């Protein structure tokens, strides 16, 4: 019985203090020892600087802070005669690997047929919508790009908003997140989620275990696919992004994403390409490329999509060729790479 056990209390105080002090030491060690704070890791993509680190004369790009960029490394100062192109988008632009992506295909094409010496940074991350892409744009302007290829779509706006809600909740006073905000225990928890929960458990098991209040809240706001709700929000953010890029004097190529409707074999984008073209195509330094127009005319459209949204390697090559033509036109003053 517990009252009989009170005599144990004096002997457990020492070990309890040792355990707490050990944890406190680890917290200090993690606070001072890690370059990246756990708050950045839990930024859900809303940290401007996450994933970018300057190491001597190089810029290292890694997967961090909910930015699932491919690992890359480039000279910090742009080498003479080399063009610096940055592709900013979501999972479709990110591709299956650094090489098997639009950026990879474009780099190969430019160094081959197009005869443009260029490095192409792949700065695309799954689920990224206009808000998080703008943060990426804001950061990469530090590295003096010669062209930004902005991959625009609408369905990722939902994820952007949900992750923003998550970000604001995480950074709130709420005690639910006090552990997450600790430098050491926060990392332990995040590592468990990333390394064990996400990698070990099958998707359907995870889905059954999730009680995600934010997802429910978002579902109450709007349907993920409701383009009438999300398009104006996306365009408002894109306005700011275009202003920032053009304000820095950097040319901009907007690639408007399209989807494949397997029920009727049509490539669609709910009028997004027309809306974006009407808004920006006449502006100097801005080029708009419609994925819908590019694929609709092709008889093999179904072979260009791996699913309703992501491109196959063949699809990426088609997109890269179109982008290559525009890049070639921009840097060489004309010519066709195809």
């Amino acid at each position, binding site marked *: *019985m*517990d*009252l009989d*056990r*009170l*005599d*144990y*209390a*004096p*002997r*457990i*105080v*020492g*070990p*309890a203090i*040792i*355990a*707490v002090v*050990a*944890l406190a030491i680890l917290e200090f060690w993690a606070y001072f020892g890690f370059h990246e704070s756990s708050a950045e890791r839990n930024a859900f993509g809303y940290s401007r600087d996450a994933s970018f680190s300057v190491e001597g004369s190089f810029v290292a790009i890694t997967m961090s802070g909910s930015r699932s960029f491919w690992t890359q490394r480039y000279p910090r100062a742009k080498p003479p005669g080399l063009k610096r192109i940055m592709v900013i988008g979501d999972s479709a632009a990110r591709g299956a690997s650094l090489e098997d992506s639009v950026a990879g295909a474009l780099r190969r094409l430019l160094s081959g047929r197009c005869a443009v010496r260029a490095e192409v940074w792949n700065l695309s991350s799954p689920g990224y919508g206009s808000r998080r892409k703008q943060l990426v744009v804001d950061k990469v302007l530090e590295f003096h790009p010669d062209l930004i290829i902005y991959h625009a779509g609408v369905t990722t706006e939902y994820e952007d908003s949900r992750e923003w809600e998550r970000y604001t909740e995480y950074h709130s006073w*709420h*005690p*639910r997140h006090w*552990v997450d905000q*600790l430098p050491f*225990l926060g990392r*332990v*928890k995040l590592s*468990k*989620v990333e390394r*064990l*929960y996400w*990698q*070990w*458990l*099958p998707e*359907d*098991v*995870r889905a*059954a*275990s999730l*009680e995600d209040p934010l997802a429910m809240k978002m579902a109450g706001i709007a349907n993920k696919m409701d383009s009438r709700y999300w398009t104006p929000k996306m365009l408002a953010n894109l306005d700011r992004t275009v202003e920032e890029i053009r304000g820095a004097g950097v040319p901009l190529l907007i690639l408007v994403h399209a989807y494949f409707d397997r029920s009727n074999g049509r490539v669609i984008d709910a009028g997004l390409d027309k809306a974006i073209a009407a808004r920006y195509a006449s502006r100097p330094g801005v080029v708009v490329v419609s994925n819908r127009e590019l694929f609709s005319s092709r008889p093999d459209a179904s072979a260009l999509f791996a699913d309703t949204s992501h491109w196959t390697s063949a699809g990426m090559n088609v997109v890269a060729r179109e982008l290559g033509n525009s890049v070639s036109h921009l840097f060489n003053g004309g010519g066709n790479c195809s």
Partner: protein
Amino acid sequence: MSFATWYYPFFLVAISTVFWLLPRGRLAFILLASFVFYGFWDVRFCSLLIAAAASDYLCTRGIEDAPPPLAKVLAIGMLPTAWLLVIGQFKEVAGLYVATSTLACAAFCLLFTAGSRLKGENRRRFLLYLAVGVNLGILVFFKYANWFSAGLLALLQPIGISPDWVLLDILLPVGISFHTFQSIAYVADVFAGRCKAERDFWRVLCMIMFFPQLVAGPIERAAGMLPQLSFEKRFDWRFVVWGLHLLLLGYFLKVFVADNCAVISDYFFERIHLGESFGVGWVLAAMGAYTAQIYGDFVGYSYIARGSAILLGIELTRNFELPLLSRSPGEFWRRWHISLSTWIRDYVFLPLSLSISNRNRSSPSGEPAVNDLAIVSFCLIVTMLLAGLWHGADWHFIAFGGFHGVLQVLWLVVPGAKVLSSSAGFLPRITSRMLTFVLVCVAWVLFRSDTMSDAARVLASAAGANGPGAEVPSGVVSWLAVHAVPFVLLIAMVRHEKEEADLARRSKAILAISYFLMIMLLASSEGGRAQFIYFQF
């Protein structure tokens, strides 16, 4: 309010701090805290707790030959209705509820007054039956009426009658099975002279409503609980240290072990209910996961309850004694949910078996008609069926109880079973523990499945009788191992002790490492599920 919510620790710290700072009025303060605690679910259901306490208080006073005056009977007897009327000013309370409550309270006062006028043993028996009737009435109406009405409808439908009014759709108040059993034990103990009737109504109410044990036990006995509710203890820093020790163990078992194993078992049993098939590996993984889940959930809850209570200087009963190390099904029930199993032993099994045994011995021939083993076996089965039914109004709960009853009888009648469970050698010890563990895991399948047919499909799959089903992914096994290994290590460290809390007897180095790991593993887990499995009972 659940122990697993983020605000419970804040609530507990605030309550225990103010409690020790109060020079007087601690009983009223704990009562207020208990109303707040229970009111988080549904403040209207507090009227049921008040009703149980009022009935217990008045009837025990009457049983002890000191029935209160009529004015006091009316004042206390009508309290549940008064509560509903007060609550009705802030929250919607249907007029039907108030009218029903008024009628029930008036009927109780009438019956009590009539019963109080009886003499001697008749009065005592009448008031005992009245108090037990009130408590069982509340339990049966709120817990089993839906089940009975659904069963009645199923019986009527084949003959072309299907009245909608039969389905009552009654909400189940949280923890109703626990506080009604505690009430019944109090009245029965006063009747049997095992404890004195309490003179202070508020103390009886506090015994029933004491928030650390309100919703899922332990089912306390009045003889142990009531004297503590004078709150005369002085603050002792050891209460805080031991309380935190118990709370850490409880949250570790609940949040790290139970909630993480629930990811696997919940998925499995939900899919089984939807008709999916699984291979033997999946079934075994899910059975192991659910065993760890229910153990962590309920044992963890009990530690949190005890830790919360000791912070207020109150000692609650130990409810578990490492039941997974049991060597027989009977021993399992002596070590699992001890407050329920001893309740059932004292108030169902012993009276039933003594009654049958006495009738058996007083047969006209003078020779017992049936041998004692048959009587004990019969009583064991009946008792365990009732224990199953206590858990919930469904056939799979009854089957769970029945299965345990049959196992206990088998251990009584099968030659060698008792020897295996009591031999001191290494091999019999391991064999009997493994055998009991496997049988307990099988019983949990009956307990957890949504229906009997689900349970049958799981058990058939475990035996490989359902053909090839989905194989268990290695990641699921790894996930389970990560959360079970620290749990198994904890059990292994205290295997010669009474319970996990006896970790405090280990060396200081082991204690420091254990605390460090438990805090780290606890922190690495998501915030925990808001509810405990046993809250639904």
